């Protein structure tokens, strides 16, 4: 797939801790961060408030796409209206000026929303690396009632035993090592 070239290859090993309570996951995420574990991710059935802060994930860039694309859509719409009505086929409609700005506002606005909205969805899909039908699903209950903390192998400092030790004290239902 075209998108695969943007995707990082999955790590060979990872530690996965499973929780049945979002608060325990939040505490575990904070603890893992405190111990300097890198590249951590979490899997949750719904967006848990405060989790991305606990994991230190950067704010999403999707809103910038909305802003830029919304403004571009509006600009393109207005340009097109002016070009068709005043330059390519200037025609007198009821004595109105060729560039009838107030009358052009609704279509300009709709073009902005159309481009902004569709590109927001496109940006979301791109940002999440979707469609992604190949990566393994680590636990089927992540979309149901299970919360998972995921610590992938991140380099020479990665110590399986140490991570297992840290996460075993966080009230996890299960802590396991995954090998791909």
């Amino acid at each position, binding site marked *: 797939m075209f998108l695969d070239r943007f995707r990082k290859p999955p790590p060979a090993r990872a530690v996965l801790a499973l929780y049945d309570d979002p608060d325990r996951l939040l505490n575990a995420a904070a603890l893992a961060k405190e111990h300097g574990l890198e590249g951590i991710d979490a899997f949750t059935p719904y967006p848990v408030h405060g989790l991305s802060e606990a994991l230190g994930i950067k704010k999403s860039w*999707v809103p910038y796409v909305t802003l830029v694309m919304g403004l571009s859509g509006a600009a393109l719409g207005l340009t097109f209206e002016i070009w068709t009505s005043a330059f390519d086929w200037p025609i007198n409609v009821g004595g109105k000026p060729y560039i*009838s700005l107030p009358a052009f506002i609704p279509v300009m606005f709709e073009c902005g929303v159309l481009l902004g909205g569709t590109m927001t969805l496109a940006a979301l899909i791109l940002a999440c690396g979707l469609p992604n039908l190949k990566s393994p699903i680590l636990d089927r209950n992540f979309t149901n009632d299970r919360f998972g903390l995921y610590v992938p192998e991140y380099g020479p400092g990665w110590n399986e035993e140490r991570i297992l030790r840290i996460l075993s004290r966080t009230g996890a239902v299960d802590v396991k090592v995954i090998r791909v």
Partner: protein
Amino acid sequence: MSDVALSPALPTEPLIDPRKSFADVNQDVSAPLERKPGMLWKVCFGITALLTLQFFMEIGYQMYKGIGIWGLNHPVGWAVDITSFVFWIGIGHAGTLISAILHLFRQRWRTAINRSAEAMTIFAVMTAGLFPLIHLGRTWFAYWLVPYPNWRFLWVNFRSPLIWDVFAVTTYLTISICFWYTGLIPDFASLRDRSTGWRRAIYGVLSLGWRGSERHWQHYERAYMMLAGLSTPLVLSVHSVVSFDFATSLLPGWHTTIFPPYFVAGAIFSGFAMVVTLLVILRKVFHMEEYVTLQHLENMNKIILVTGMMVGYAYATEFFVALYSGNPFERFTFLNRARGPFAWSYWIMVTCNVVVPQIFWFKKFRRSLAVMFVVSILVNVGMWFERFTIIVTSLHRDFLPPNWSYYKPTIFDYSVIVGSFGFFFMWFLLFCRFFPAISMAEVKSVLWSAKKSAAREAPRAKEPAHVS
């Protein structure tokens, strides 16, 4: 989705039973999709499919014969078709209001109803979009409405509100689908993970391989917020643009500046009534009483009451300004609405939209399923007649008395009205069967807040026992 909205100072009824588990939510919402459809669903689907069939047969015959088969004539050139167009577009507005505006205002009670309300929006806009197309008469030239480079070297007239309509309605449909689909992605993943075989494959593709990673949720939540932010002005613009179709003309009764807000309030009013109608049935048939509670329905009934009064206020303002303006044509048009040959339509509108919703001042009636079901249907009858009154009574007596006539619908007019309802409900029934009717992911976040506040309440409730 923050927890800010749950103020501990106000004793609120929980939106969901805190004893439920996260797994219960998935189980309860997915159950109707995983069992064979019941007899009731099949019968309803059969009826609506038949109505849809006759709808398209009527459209086919009308494309063959011309729009003269309707009761349209001089001077009433717009009647049931444009009335239904405005009616169905209006129905859609409540869905976007629930999903976008209530999201921005952090009204968490929307989580149980936003999915079905958004579905309603999409199907209503689809139904609405058919009407201007068939009203064209030569439907096969509908693509002329789109500005595309052509060998006639012509462009559309961007100064015409009818072209604004084309842009507004198509944008509205597209963005509503984007917004709806964004909300559905995590729920499709939930369905994928609990099913096997071909269902797993289909829901897997629909979910695009969503796996609930926090890095993805981070993008997801921001994107959802952006779409809500875009949909909010969009929904206000759509019915404003629809009202411009009338307001920018010079016809007394149409040429008023009050139209955009008046139309938007009316759209939200009728849309909420349709949501109540649909949800009263949906929660019963699919056993969703624990998710769509009386609290949800009561909140919607309050909105119906408020928007109903806004609409009533607009009627009064419109009438007062017409009388006060000193313009004899304007004054005549409005007196003709209330006392002329279409007075029956005007008074149906006033009764259903202004008088009937007043019953919701009483909590007992706001929480009564039978009362709200009847009121919601009456409101929609009233709102259909509101558009009919605006369109037909303004047209049937124009500036030249020799032109005056009465509009009489033919059997084909009735056929499109009934057919459009069949078309709309058929899609809604299909939606209930194959898509999760309640947003599982969003309900879970509300459920967790409910669990936490229940845990906070519990020790407090025990205190009196310790004292005694």
